[in-house]
Every structure is written in structure tokens, then in C-alpha cells.
């Protein structure tokens, strides 16, 4: 594991070094790209927390025995899965003010991205909860463990490791989808590179750096997820 991380880091450093050596004008546009990267990271981290929280709350709520909870979650999932993220962003930023709800660009972006991906994540969580063997529920009933305790202590701890591959995939997708937040006036890395390209016209250099940055973000999530999964399933004796 650490060997692979080291290899990726070395390769990235090599590529960055190569780029610096090859494209001497890097310093002209790099600061602007990095400022964009900070925006991308900020929106991604905030949206990710909202996305994971919504995924767990509504994924589990979708299986509730209480009908209003189940329906509310189902409506949320269907609305946000069924509509375009870009249009949702427009709604949060440009339409809601007409109803007196004023959101900052960052708030609109985080809400839009987080809620949109939360709806997809909910289905991953629902699948993971449903994948916990029926025998676990039966054991909990036989041991008279109260329902909410068994959800919290028996079902969710077993479902979490199962959600990790699906949720890390979606998290990577989400980072890439944050490129859409330029629609609500934020200058993220994609928009920054478009701007810098228009100014400096160094198309190859600029979009190569942008590509590599996205790749690094995705690798960070992938390795984080894989490590978390390994830690959580170590004692389950599963073959990887």
C-alpha cells in the first residue's frame, strides 16, 4: 500500500518537474490555477460532508417503517437523482432569491453538489444495508436488542465497509462535477484554466496541469477509501 502511494507521489513529482522544466511560463498562470484548485478543494470537502451525511440519513430513512420518513426520503432521492446538477445550481443561486432566499455562491454550490450526490449515495447506502444478512436481524430479535440499537450497533457498522467502494467512486465523480460551480460565479480550477487559456493561450500547459491536479484529487480519494475499507474489514476475514 505505502509502496503504491510512494510510487504515485514520485510519478506526480516527476511529471510536475517535467512540466516546470518544459513550460517555463508556468509561473505566469500557475498561481491563478492554484487559486482555482483551492476553490475546488473547498467546495469538494464541504459538499462531500453534506453528500455522505445525506446518503446515510436518507438511505437508511428510505428503509424506515414510518411512512412519512420513508416517503420524504424517497421524494428527495428521486428529485435530486432525476434533475440536472447544473439546473439545480441555477435554482439555488438565481431562482431562490425570487422567493426571498438569498444564498452565497459557495452555499449554493455546496448545497447543490452535496444534495445531488447525496441522492445517488443514498442508493449505495440502501443497497449496503439491504446486503447485511437476514440472520443478523434474527439474532438481534432473538437477543431482544431494541430496534434502534440494533440498527446503530449491528446493521450500520456492517453496512459502512460495504458502502466505501461505491461512495468513494461517487466522491471522485463529485469532485469532477464541481467544475459546474462556475455557473454560480465561482472560479474553480476548470474555470480558472479556461480564463488563463484565454489570456495566455498556453492551451497544452494549462490543461495538462489541470488534468494532473484532478488526477491527484481522485487518487487521494481512492487511496483514502481503500485504506479505510482495509482497516474496517481486516477482522472480517474477507478475501480481497
Amino acid at each position: 500500500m505505502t509502496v503504491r502511494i510512494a510510487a504515485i507521489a514520485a510519478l506526480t513529482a516527476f511529471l510536475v518537474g517535467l512540466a516546470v522544466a518544459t513550460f517555463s511560463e508556468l509561473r505566469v498562470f500557475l498561481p491563478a490555477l492554484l487559486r482555482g484548485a483551492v476553490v475546488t478543494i473547498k467546495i469538494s470537502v464541504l459538499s462531500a460532508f453534506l453528500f455522505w451525511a445525506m446518503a446515510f440519513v436518507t438511505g437508511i430513512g428510505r428503509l424506515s417503517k414510518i411512512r412519512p420518513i420513508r416517503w420524504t426520503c424517497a421524494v428527495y432521492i428521486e428529485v435530486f437523482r432525476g434533475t440536472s446538477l447544473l439546473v439545480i445550481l441555477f435554482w439555488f443561486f438565481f431562482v431562490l432569491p425570487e422567493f426571498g432566499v438569498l444564498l452565497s455562491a459557495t452555499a449554493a454550490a455546496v448545497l447543490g453538489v452535496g444534495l445531488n450526490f447525496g441522492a445517488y449515495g443514498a442508493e449505495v447506502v440502501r443497497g449496503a444495508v439491504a446486503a447485511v444478512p437476514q440472520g443478523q436481524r434474527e439474532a438481534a430479535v432473538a437477543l431482544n436488542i431494541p430496534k434502534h440499537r440494533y440498527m446503530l450497533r449491528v446493521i450500520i457498522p456492517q453496512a459502512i465497509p460495504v458502502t466505501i467502494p461505491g461512495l468513494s467512486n461517487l466522491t471522485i465523480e463529485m469532485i469532477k462535477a464541481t467544475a459546474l460551480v462556475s455557473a454560480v460565479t465561482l472560479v474553480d480550477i476548470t474555470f480558472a484554466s479556461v480564463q488563463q487559456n484565454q489570456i495566455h493561450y498556453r492551451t497544452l500547459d494549462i490543461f495538462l496541469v489541470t488534468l494532473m491536479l484532478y488526477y491527484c484529487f481522485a487518487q487521494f480519494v481512492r487511496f483514502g477509501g481503500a485504506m479505510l475499507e482495509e482497516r474496517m474489514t481486516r477482522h472480517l476475514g474477507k478475501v480481497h
Partner: protein
Amino acid sequence: MTDPKIRFEKVTKRYGALVVLDQLQFEVAEGEVVTIIGPSGSGKTTVLRVLMTLEPIQDGIIWVGGEPLNKMWSGDRLVPASEAHIRSVRSRIGMVFQNFNLFPHMTALENCIEAPVQSLKLPKSEAVERAVELLEMVGLDDKRSHYPSQLSGGQQQRVAIARALAMRPKIILFDEPTSALDPEMVGEVLTVIRELASAHSYTILLVTHQMGFAREISNRVCFFDQGRIVEQGEPGRLFESPRNERLKLFLSKILQA
């Protein structure tokens, strides 16, 4: 004889059109060890499952220690039981499953203290003390920090027995406890069950295909077929001179194998 510990009164269990228990009348006395045998689909496992409230019944009443399980008293009328009522009656019953159903993310010890802490609200130290005693009793004291995946099938089933006993049930249900085990591990599990049966402090209901074992530990054997008890009796008599034709056929098939 005192009131029966368990009484099924015209209990009917259906899955759609399929009748699994057909107006079943069945009683078990306190301290009795009863083995249920029968062909697959005869309803023998269902008896344990409805008693453990894993599945609802469509008709009839199940009594546990003189109290209705699926109903409760409202004045002098029986009304459908509330969750709280079911929980209180169910606390007298423990169950051991064919596939163990241990919690895979908890160690052997954690499996045995989970329910006492979460359900009985015992202080953790007391639950641990009791769990260690039980793990000693099933011969697995040295495996207390092992996860189920690190234990053999026989060891897992012994942990499952300790876990059920940790809730201090009066009635223990064993649902084919050795059917999922490799042959060389059957003995260690049967030894533990034999000890429990000979302690005479538990009422035991056992579903098994181990006829020799059933004969050795049971006070009574019931042969189920098509959701009813077709024949029952003291094990020596039932195995040696069965009266019912279907029981004769069943025994000849089982004993041949």
C-alpha cells in the same frame, strides 16, 4: 404437573396459500427437553421461529410461562400484543441458529455482552464477568478476543450458545445447531447442549437430524409432518416401534443414510 412452559393453541402459520403450521396443538413442560424431527417443509423449524417471534402467526395463541406471547390481556379480553409486551415475554426465550448468526464485527466476548448491555442494561463490568464465565463453560475462554471469522464453525456455534445464555433465558431453542458444521465439529457442540440438557434448569426445544443425540437427551420426541404433530412419545419407544406409516418411512430413510 404445573402449567406448561410453552403451549401452542390452534396455531396456524401460512405463507400465502401454503399452510406451514395447521392449527397446531403443542405443549412443553417446564424443564422438559423436546426434540422435533420431520421431513423438510414439515414446519419443524417454523415452530421455533414463531416462538422466537421471528415470524408472525395468522391464527391461534402461543403461551409462554402462562402468558400469551402474540396477544396480551386488556381487562379480560385478549388483544394483539404490543411491541413492549412481546419484548417482555420474549426475554425468557433464547435461540441458537443453524448458521450461528454471530455479529461478525464483534469479538467473541463483545458478541456475548452486546445484548446484556443494550437490552438488559447491565453494567458493562457485570456483563463481561458473566460472559467470561459462559465462554469458560463452552471451553472458549482463550478465544474471547477472536472475531468470528477467526473461529471454526464449532467454536462459532459454541460462542453463539454462550451469547444466547448471557440473556439468562428459561427456554432455549436450538434450530439444527449442527447442520452447518463439518462432521468433526459436531461433537463439541453436542457436548455443550448435552450439559445444558442435563442441568435441568432450562426448557429445551431442539430441531435436529442427529437421531442418536435426540434419543440420548430428549424426554420426548415429536414427529412433524405437514404442519402437525403426527406422532410423539418417549424417544426409545418412538424410534423402536413407530406407529405412524410416515414416521416409519422417515426413520427408515434417515437411519439408512
